[in-house]
């Protein structure tokens, strides 16, 4: 047994060098190729900490989120939860541990079973883990619904009777039902309208505060992440290319990709600067990544040196930031 002091010092979630490959076949008779969705990622999440994972679609954010919850098995590296390596605990003990870690999905339409009432779905976790009798569960469902800002009387309704924002609240209630201390939210507001997005982001912020949750918040929108997260990891082509305090990265992005991402994000307050050309080209295929730095095919600063080796994540700037770019010091 670890002492209480120990368990406070160890991070709640620790990913070390995790990679995940998917088998895919190109075309009907094409040869098999491995898609390297996540490559050698280190990430720690402390208790009560909110970490943002940012990047464009296909960069491996969702895969990383599922690896952290051991919903996918890593092809290399380890994920530890509260000091225990998830790959080494099996079956029932892993299922018991799942009470403490939860997932919230992007698509509020796909994440709820269309055929069961929201109350039943929220109660599932409590019943599966024997945390409540059906009668107690019903009561707790009412409490959870009002906690996420919904009418407790709506427990008997089916998902299609709710709007997108309300469904996302239901999904949050379901994730909270087992009293988790770690939640991965995979683009939970990306499918919502702005005004609703703000409601849900605020709700997540409040719940994190009051319940002391550790949160991994996956998003392609740096703006939203900044409101919610202490730390950010920016991913490109399966790797973390920059990580550090959210405010610092937002104020002065260091990696050329982070800069491009921020510059490309449209803004209400700053009108588009026509001299600033958008990032050219597209994300290379994760089954055939470029040698060396994954960003070099689109990077305005790329040199021949960038093709030689994968730039390691190295401390930069003294504000707790790490950047994976060989030229980061030069380009200032």
């Amino acid at each position, binding site marked *: 047994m670890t002492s209480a002091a120990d368990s406070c010092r160890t991070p709640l979630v620790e990913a070390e060098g995790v990679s995940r490959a998917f088998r895919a076949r190109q075309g009907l008779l094409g040869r098999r190729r491995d898609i390297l969705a996540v490559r050698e990622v280190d990430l720690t999440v402390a208790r009560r900490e909110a970490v943002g994972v940012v990047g*464009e679609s296909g960069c491996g954010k969702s895969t990383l989120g599922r690896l952290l*919850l051991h*919903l996918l098995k890593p092809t290399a590296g380890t994920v530890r939860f509260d000091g225990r390596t998830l790959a080494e605990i099996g079956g029932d003990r*892993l*299922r*018991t*541990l*799942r*009470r403490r870690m*939860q*997932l919230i*999905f*992007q*698509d509020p339409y*796909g*994440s*709820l*079973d*269309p*055929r069961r009432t929201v109350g039943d779905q929220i109660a*599932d*976790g409590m019943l*599966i*883990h024997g945390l409540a009798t059906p009668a107690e569960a019903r009561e707790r469902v009412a409490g959870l619904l009002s906690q996420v800002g919904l009418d407790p009387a709506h427990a008997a309704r*089916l*998902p*299609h009777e709710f*709007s997108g*924002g*309300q469904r996302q609240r239901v999904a949050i209630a*379901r994730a909270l039902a*087992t009293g988790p201390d770690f939640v991965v939210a995979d683009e939970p507001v990306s499918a919502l309208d*702005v*005004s*609703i*997005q*703000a*409601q849900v982001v*605020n709700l997540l*912020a409040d719940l994190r505060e009051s319940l002391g949750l550790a949160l991994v918040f996956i998003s*392609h*929108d740096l*703006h939203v992440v*900044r*409101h919610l997260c202490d730390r950010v990891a920016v991913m490109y082509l399966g790797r973390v290319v920059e990580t550090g305090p959210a405010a610092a990265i937002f104020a002065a992005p260091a990696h050329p990709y982070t800069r*491009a*991402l921020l510059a*490309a*994000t*449209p*803004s*209400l*307050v700053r*009108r*588009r600067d026509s001299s600033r*050309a*958008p*990032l*050219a080209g*597209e994300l290379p295929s994760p089954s055939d990544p470029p040698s060396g730095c994954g960003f070099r095919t689109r990077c305005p600063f790329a040199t021949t040196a960038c093709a030689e080796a994968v730039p390691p994540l190295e401390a930069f700037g003294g504000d707790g930031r790490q950047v994976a770019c060989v030229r980061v010091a030069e380009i200032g």
Partner: protein
Amino acid sequence: MERRDLHRLAVPLAVVGGIVALAAAAPLLPLADPVHIEVSARLTPPSEGHWLGQDEYGRDVLSRAIWGARASLAVSFLAAAIAGIAGTALGLLGGYFRGVVEILTVRSAEAVLCFPPLLLALLVVTLLGPGAGTLIVALSILYAPSYARVAYAETLAARNLDYVVAQEALGARSGRILLRTVLPNVAPPLLVQFSLTVASAMVLESGLSFLGLGVVPPEPSWGLMIRGARSTMDQAPWLLLWPCLALTGTIVALNMLCDALRDVLDPRGRTVSANPFRAFVSGLLPATEPAPAPPALLRVDGLHLAIGHGPGALPAVRDVSLAVAPGETLAVVGESGSGKTLTGLAILGLLPPVVRVTGGRILYTGRDGTTVDLARLGEPALRRLRGDELSMVFQDPSASLNPVHRVGDQVAETIRAHRDLSAAEARRRAVALLDRVGLPDAARRARAYPHELSGGQRQRAVIAAAIANGPRLLIADEPTTALDVTIQAQILELMAGLKAQAGGMGLIFVTHNLAVVSEIADRVVVMYVGEVVEEGPVAEVFGSPRHPYTAALVASVPEGDDDRLSAIPGVVPPLHDLPAGCRFAPRCGLAEPACTAGAPALESLGGGRSTRCRRWREVA
């Protein structure tokens, strides 16, 4: 289950139930002995004692039909049910666990399909001896693999759905996930499979019985009756009629039942049906208002659109007016359900069949200088304009491209639909267009199929087709919403560039993203549940909004430095339950009793600005 569901199920359920009850009650009914032979009364037509006549051995046909139903129904229902349960279990397991389990279940079940059905049946009969029981076993083995296949395919699709992964994340056991979550959601196609299987089992039963592999004569079954009647078809055709009627009637009733069940089990219910005739007639009605001054390009005047018809019609778009000048970019912004897309579709006459124009005008001045009302233009005239003077880019580029044609050919097709050009010349222009929209290596990519391009490249191809004939007005409906920000920036830059080159092209850009509006548009129309609430030049509207909704939208954009985002309380009201008076009142911080008493009108503020708020002076 709701009353209306019971209603739908009532008829097919009663028919199938009646047939089954009749067969079950055969021993209790005052029927003649179905195997009693009376050779002298061979092939007698229907008479008082024998309502349906007598067969080739003089047996009572009515009695044989009812007793025969027992064998036929029992064999086919039991076989279909056993096959269904076994096959579904195999398919669920195989699809859920994949790997070795898949090989042991689905793949080995499929091996059964390689045997000729008769050979398989013979094998079973040799092992078990003939009889109805054998028939059930043989048919179950025969049909189980097709259930397994359907269940397998459905499970594969369902197992990656978020709500199934959610159960896994909750720590549910596989058995619970399979039974409570996957099975109910893969059930509808399996129900259809069930009705198909029962029908085909009934037919096969007759064939196998004839070969002496199934029901053994003289016991009756519909299959044996059909066989028997076939040989005497010339002398007594009615003998063929009765069992065939019974067989088809049962199968039809069963299909109806399964269809109704599937619909009832779909929690989303049924959609409103359209009345195309009404829509057609309303399209023919002439405008009654006096003709206003023609617009330079486009002016929508008091447009009303309704979904459905009759008293239940939903007023999706109400009193929408907007105008686009040549060379101008007008953004239409609003949350989902605000009517942005419908307004855009109405301009091009592309409204889905359930939606119709119930009022207003869409005045468009064409290349030749004449002004027409697009809301009342016939389809042939609209088709001449669409893709030529008016064109559209949709949110989902893959839905706008035909997956089986090369993208270059699709662009060339658009050109040839409106211009008299040779195929070679059109193709040459298509490549030039693809190059102009920034598709890398355009000459080679023109020969690519849509699935070979990325999302951003597909959207470029769609834009190439949209501008192929130099449109005067381009409507782009959320063209960048499905794209990543760096790709979105590329497409926005492309559209701005195209507009600058094609001097005079008007652009209506529909989006929910305020930041995108401020990057691309000159003027903006803000919509809320089907109404325009504010309009004006972008910088002014976003800089100093004159409607509380616009102000709240601007404040909720996550760009500020505050830790908390500013959210609009409440939800967008549904169309069937719009609040009285000002539609925004329930969510508005400035609402006062007068706001709910009467609906505010769109008020012009001068300088091209207007607002639909009685308290606009107080909006901060």
